[in-house]
């Protein structure tokens, strides 16, 4: 069973994606800020991470920076999504090596999940 980690501070958004992904047969865990996300990714070793940008304690960019430093984690694809999605964010995310950067307002949850599935092992 493929494993997905959601790192997101809004519990409603976590619930929406967790409900859908679990119904589709995925194993889902979540962290509510970047620091918790780091702890979870080490312990859970997911196949893909769905990552928010703005979070307390450690934001999405901080999370990626940490993950990319760790050779055991750096290959895990990260799908980042944001409610801002301006030029600076996109460039920064790309330079840090995200697999995909999505703007929440442009996509439905179904479409986001479609994007996540692209990075799962076939």
């Amino acid at each position, binding site marked *: 069973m493929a494993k997905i980690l959601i790192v997101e501070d809004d519990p409603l958004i976590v619930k*929406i994606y967790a409900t859908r992904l679990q119904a589709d047969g995925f194993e889902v865990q979540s962290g509510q800020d970047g620091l918790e996300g780091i702890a979870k990714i080490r312990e859970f070793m997911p196949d893909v991470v769905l990552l928010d940008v703005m979070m307390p304690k450690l934001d999405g960019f901080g999370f990626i920076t940490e993950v990319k430093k760790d050779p055991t984690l750096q290959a895990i694809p990260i799908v980042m999504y944001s*409610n801002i999605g301006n030029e600076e964010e996109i460039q920064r995310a790309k330079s840090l090596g995200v697999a995909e950067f999505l703007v929440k307002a442009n996509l439905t949850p179904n479409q986001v999940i479609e994007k996540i599935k692209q990075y799962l092992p076939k």
Partner: protein
Amino acid sequence: MSPLLYGLIGIALCAAAYVVARSVSARHYENELKKQEHRITQLQQQAKTLGVVWSIEQLIVNTLNFSEVGEKIVNATILELENYGFAASYLLQIDTTKNALISTATAYTPSLHNPELRTFFAHATTMSLSQKDHPFITSLSTKQMVISENLEQLFGQFDAATAAALQQTGIKSAIAFPLISKTMPLGVLLFLLTKQSTEVSAYELTMISGFANAVAIALHNATLYAKVSKTTQDLQIANEHLKELDRLKDEFVSLASHELRTPMTAIRGSLSTILDGYAGDVSPQTREFLTAAYNENDRLIRLVNNLLNISRIEAGRFKFEHNVFNYPKMMQEVVGNLQMAGKEKKLYVTYTSTITTLQLVSDEDKIREVLINIIGNAIKFTHQGGITIADRIEGKLLYVSVTDTGSGITKEDQDLLFKKFSQVGRDTYAKQTGGTGLGLYISKQIIEGLGGSIWLESQLGHGSTFHFTLPITT
């Protein structure tokens, strides 16, 4: 008498005549020499006058700021005229806002050392323009200089101390020269002299007259300069203010759109999770209301997206992100979403395509926005029938068209359609349908930015077709 005697007398006479002639001619030469010397002095003085006036003009030409130039002028004049008994020089300027003649610059020779006397003259040289019988004010209209020994008439009653101090400095007379540029009186150039008015030479008057003309020009220029620099300054301030407002607006739009989009995407996520059946069965009636809520929320998201786009376009921060994407899949998704909105209005939304595979290198998110805007508009302005979406590939171009069975658009309105904030029939129709009129303007910016073109075919009463093209780069 012997011829010898005659001869001697003759010689003596000649000698006498010679001596007389010599002395006469010597006196003549002496006079001539004096005359020449006098002329030379005169010429030298004239040259000096011209030189001084010229140097003052240079001063004026090179300094536009009059508060500076005023000081320089009074200093230069007094420096030149000091040896002729000129003890002080004042520049009095007309201040129209205060309706007064005001002393703006002063220069003294050391002879006017008494500070109380200086204070006295500083006060006495400032007066209201309504004092029409004051010689200074009169000189402005008569354009004649005032040269007078009646100092009390010019400066008011002296008390004992002032009179004594004045006595000590030896100030005997004053000259006031009106400063007039073209026909406009600007002020008065005033001098205090340690000699009688009758002792003022033509040379001195020429010099003062030269100064006065130069100062009048300077004053006039300075007034113009002040106006220009005030306007420039005002414009600069206004410009800075606008820049700041612009920055604040950008910041606000960014913040507001984030704050607005966060709850709106959460609403969309929740509603779609229910509608997609992840939260249990949904009765048809519940589905109908939830679908309506979902569509209305999507409209809000589109509106905020458009406002954000506009703000980015205006700030020159509208950038494209190219990536490889599956075109048919994107079309299916976009149309699928909008079919819900069509269903609500009982309109068909159909997409038939022969393109089964096409990997496009372009900005997927922005193309989605264009499609959502065009198809969304078609749904909004169509009340019967529906919307047909079609596409085809021709050479290196992808053609997409969106045809509706709406009311159509007149030729004149078609030209306005892609402009910012324009909505056809704004007064009546737009009120019922809502919207900001930004969608097509943004769509045009996006399509043209991606190297395509966008246009419209329509006839009033026969629906509309929006077309756009995109270059195929794989």
